[in-house]
């Protein structure tokens, strides 16, 4: 097991754990805005780490550059979509759950 392979699987595992955590947060958190927080942060971070891990195992330059492009694209669009979503919800009048109610 070379160092690169170990590093690659470490990154992949970290990414997968983050992704699972985000999905779990989507389930357990009380209201929409907190869920957006969980989903979008762990989405970008987990996906990037996972793709970086795969990048270390890429066989050729073509594969590597594609992984890099996917990662860049996700990094650009995931936060943007979350931002636009939260803004749209706010404009639409969805109120965040504050105070004691949020600490059920």
């Amino acid at each position, binding site marked *: 097991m070379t160092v690169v392979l170990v590093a690659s699987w470490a990154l992949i595992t970290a990414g997968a754990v983050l992704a*699972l955590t985000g999905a779990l947060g989507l389930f357990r958190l009380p209201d929409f805005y907190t*869920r957006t927080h969980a989903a979008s942060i762990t989405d970008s971070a987990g996906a990037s780490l*996972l793709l970086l891990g795969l990048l270390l195992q890429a*066989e050729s330059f073509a594969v590597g550059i594609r992984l890099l492009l996917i990662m860049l694209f996700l990094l650009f669009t995931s936060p943007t979509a*979350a931002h636009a979503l939260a803004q749209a919800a706010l404009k639409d009048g969805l109120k965040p759950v504050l105070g004691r109610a949020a600490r059920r």
Partner: protein
Amino acid sequence: MWLALALAVLTTMALALARALLGPTLYDRILAINLFGTKTVLFIAVAGFMAGRPEFLDIALVYALINFIGTVAVLKLSHYGEFSRAEELQGDDL
């Protein structure tokens, strides 16, 4: 190892789907489906590596694109109620 990874991503997808089905407001569902799309991208990338077929990555790129466009589409619709509302651009918008 690869199988475990694929199953982990699938579990994430299933959780996102559950939120999409449950989510009390429309925005919860949009968020969940956006997450589902991103996880599908990861699943395709992992599947490509499992099968030793890197051509799958082109598909993953398309999924990422489609996911984004779908989210923007539903946002535009539920925010304003129609697609064709133009946004007034101010002069030197970047």
